[in-house]
């Protein structure tokens, strides 16, 4: 069990030390969402309609871009080798790393989203649903993303590969996430969407650590 402690402590320490890595993701999220009004023009009605979609796409892209960092540094400097030959369960290590990844990328996005939502004129219940959907959805993005990140470790142009691999897997999350807000504004109620997101989260929590562990073993052959 203490391995979890050490992995989390180490990764948090590194995240603090490389603060700008965390900021990159957050900042990217802010940029994406703020550029849109500049690109599509200032009509409030239009902006309100596309707001939830833009925020969700932004969160998705921001997470996707941060995936490269999840294992790359550990791979390049040999720490990952040490983790593989360490006596503890690899799935546990993986899970700890994903948790820190989410704390450093997903959580800030969630905290930031109400503010950005306001910029698009999303308010009240809709804003609450948006934040909640992100809170449930971003951990799934981190978990599923870990599979892509581990499979492409050390490959030429890992970047595009990660995107290619995880994108199709992200789409259900995006649809339920952005859909939740629309459902709540159109009066259907967001309950269904949010429960589905929760189900996805549980599924991902159960299935991904093992998959990632074997992917890591494959990649470090």
């Amino acid at each position, binding site marked *: 069990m203490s391995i979890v402690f050490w992995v989390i402590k180490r990764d948090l320490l590194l995240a603090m030390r490389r603060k700008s890595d965390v900021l990159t993701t957050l900042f990217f999220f802010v940029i994406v969402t703020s550029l849109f009004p500049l690109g599509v023009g200032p009509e409030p009605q239009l902006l309100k309609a596309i707001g939830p979609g833009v925020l969700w796409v932004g969160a998705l892209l921001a997470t996707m871009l941060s995936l490269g960092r999840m294992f790359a540094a550990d791979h390049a400097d040999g720490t990952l080798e040490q983790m593989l030959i*360490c006596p503890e369960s690899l799935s546990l290590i993986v899970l700890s790393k994903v948790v820190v990844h989410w704390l450093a990328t997903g959580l800030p996005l969630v905290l930031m989203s109400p503010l950005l939502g306001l910029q698009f004129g999303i308010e009240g219940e809709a804003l609450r649903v948006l934040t909640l959907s992100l809170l449930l959805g971003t951990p799934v993005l981190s978990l599923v993303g870990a599979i892509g990140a581990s499979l492409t470790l050390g490959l030429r142009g890992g970047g595009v590969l990660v995107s290619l691999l995880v994108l199709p897997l992200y789409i259900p999350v995006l649809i339920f996430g952005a859909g939740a807000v629309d459902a709540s504004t159109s009066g259907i109620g967001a309950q269904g969407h949010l429960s589905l997101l929760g189900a996805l989260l549980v599924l991902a929590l159960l299935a991904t650590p093992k998959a990632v562990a074997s992917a890591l073993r494959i990649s470090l052959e």
Partner: protein
Amino acid sequence: MVLTAESMLEATELACMRGDRILFTDVGFRLAPGEFLHVRGPNGSGKSSLLRMLSGLLLPEAGTVTWQGRNIKNNEEYHRALIYLGHLNGIKEELSAMENLKITCGLAGFDVEEKDALDAFERIGLFGREHLPTKVLSQGQRRRVMLSRLLVAQTPLWILDEPIVALDTDAIGLMRSLFELHLENGGMLIMTTHQELELSAGIYKEIRLTS
């Protein structure tokens, strides 16, 4: 091939293939406490590959590696008994020597006291540099950070890939005496190096790979 009580690590008929090139076949040895196995050979002959195989990072094309009679694959006990240090440093540039040491040891399953760590750094010649981020250290100092793990660890088997590269003569002397102590205490050592390094303790064994 009868397994003697003492032989802890045993490799039989290992073969290694990289790309479409066969690097070596039929490599085997046994290692008992207090023995030192020197893997020699020219550049590119497969020394690093063999060491990675022995640590379980590379699956052998053929042959097996056993620890106390059990295959090392998914063998927790083996991984608890092992330290492997490769070409890569395995240290984080942003963290200080102290943080690096504490964390690698933590990951390997045991805690280091601040005091012991300071002792180790003093012995290995990093005194006064423990709290600098390792990226500002010189080439040799970075190697020392990595090697400091050997000073605090209590594991019986060390697998080291060119550990003394980039070290100055003082540091090499220190490493030599450290290795000797380890062997005297019944540890085992598997190592490659292109520089000469004569140890006055332990039983010397050698594997020579050709290219």
